[in-house]
């Protein structure tokens, strides 16, 4: 131990000495040059600095400030942030709410909006049982494969079928809704700025009467959250439109919350599984980290516990 410390101390002392020498040498040299610096060098540096500052200022003058041509009414009111439980990183969907939300979609939204990317089977196990979903699917008719004579017949729906659209194509939908196309709701929470908050605000945000002076076109309704504030869809959710099977009071905001959660599920049905994978990954990585710490200690043990001893040779005294 003593030997080691002596060795270190001597090493440091040598390093310090050599460093000190070198710095002193360089500083003296630089000082000598600065004293004899010519005027044109100082001028060049000052001009370059002024040019840099000037070009930056010019750029900011030209492009720095964004021009906002849109009025707030054209942008639409920014949706309020609601404390959604399923958006927390450690919470799943409320599957009772999903079940209620699907009921709201089925009884209210489905008359105009399609949900074409969701098959009946995907709700089995997440909000309904197999038999319930089969019953829902069989309420709708689907085309069969062409039979031996080439005719296409109808058959009741199966679990593997996708939820049928209310209109055969976009033109039919527009014709039935006064020129407005009800968007497909499969990915609507991902396809709109604000997501869940926007849709909830849109559904519940119809004021009793538009604010004074606001221009509302014929056949349109005033909704502050819709960009342009004129929306073709009227208010559809009224208290008690739906009767929930689990006895939840079907208020407007309750139905909106449920259907938004359902639409969020239809946009990302993998969310529960994804969060589960995340916890799995955290568990695995912490385990691996703990293992690596122990392995490091094991591998370094011989190095950390070694002792270097210098025993000077015992020679004859001078």
């Amino acid at each position: 131990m003593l030997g080691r410390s002596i060795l270190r101390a001597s090493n440091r002392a040598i390093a310090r000495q050599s460093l000190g020498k070198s710095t002193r040498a360089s500083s003296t040299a630089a000082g000598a040059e600065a004293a004899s610096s010519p005027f044109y060098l100082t001028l060049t540096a000052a001009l370059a600095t002024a040019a840099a500052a000037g070009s930056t200022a010019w750029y900011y003058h030209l492009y720095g400030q964004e021009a906002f041509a849109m009025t707030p009414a054209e942008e639409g009111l920014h949706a309020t942030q609601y404390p959604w439980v399923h958006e927390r990183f450690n919470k799943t969907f409320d599957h009772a709410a999903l079940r209620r939300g699907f009921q709201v979609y089925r009884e209210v939204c489905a008359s105009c909006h399609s949900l074409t990317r969701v098959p009946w089977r995907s709700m089995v196990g997440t909000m309904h049982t197999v038999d319930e979903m089969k019953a829902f699917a069989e309420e709708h008719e689907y085309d069969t494969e062409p039979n031996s004579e080439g005719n296409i017949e109808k058959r009741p729906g199966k679990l593997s079928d996708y939820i049928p659209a209310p209109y055969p194509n976009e033109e039919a939908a527009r014709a039935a809704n006064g020129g407005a196309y009800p968007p497909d709701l499969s990915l609507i929470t991902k396809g709109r700025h604000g997501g869940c908050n926007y849709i909830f605000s849109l559904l519940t945000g119809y004021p009793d009467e538009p604010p004074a002076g606001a221009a509302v076109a014929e056949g349109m309704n005033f909704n502050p959250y819709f960009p342009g504030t004129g929306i073709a869809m009227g208010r559809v959710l009224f208290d008690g439109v739906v009767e929930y099977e689990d006895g939840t009071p079907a208020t407007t905001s309750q139905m909106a919350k449920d259907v938004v959660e359902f639409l969020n599920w239809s946009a990302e049905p993998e969310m529960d599984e994804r969060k589960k994978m995340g916890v799995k990954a955290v568990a695995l990585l912490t385990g691996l980290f703990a293992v690596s710490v122990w392995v490091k200690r094991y591998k370094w043990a011989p190095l950390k516990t070694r002792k270097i001893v210098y025993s000077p040779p015992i020679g004859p005294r001078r």
Partner: protein
Amino acid sequence: MGLSDFFSDVVSSFGFTEAQAEAPVQDTETETTTQEEPAEKEESASVESVETESAEETPAEESSEEAPEEEEAEAEEEEEEEEEEDEPEDIKPKLEEECAHSAVCAPYKHHYDECVERVTRQEEDEDYKGPKEDCVEEFFHLTHCVTACAAPKLWRELK
């Protein structure tokens, strides 16, 4: 094999309860029967009473008007209860109304009210030839403040 068996045994020994999609069969059956039975009894009882009292002259629908007062009162009570159940009141407008009158949103409310008053006066005045105005921006500011104030309260009430 031995190692995986060991791990599965360890996991199963914790006794995690698996979430079942299917509800237990027995419970639902008993629940449905208990729910249906009294309803059927009530219906049959009411039908019987109606039939016994005025089966001779009028059909069942008209006879309910002539039924005794007690039954009418009961029926009214039932209807009222049904109405209450059918149309629950939404708490959101009430919360937002409270928020609009709170101190936080008072300036926005003040501006909006002032704007509404001004614009309605301009609209009513036929001689007014100034620029046309609307209160959409004031409404936006007020609504934004009010919904942000009501959001946590609303979520506490909703299921």
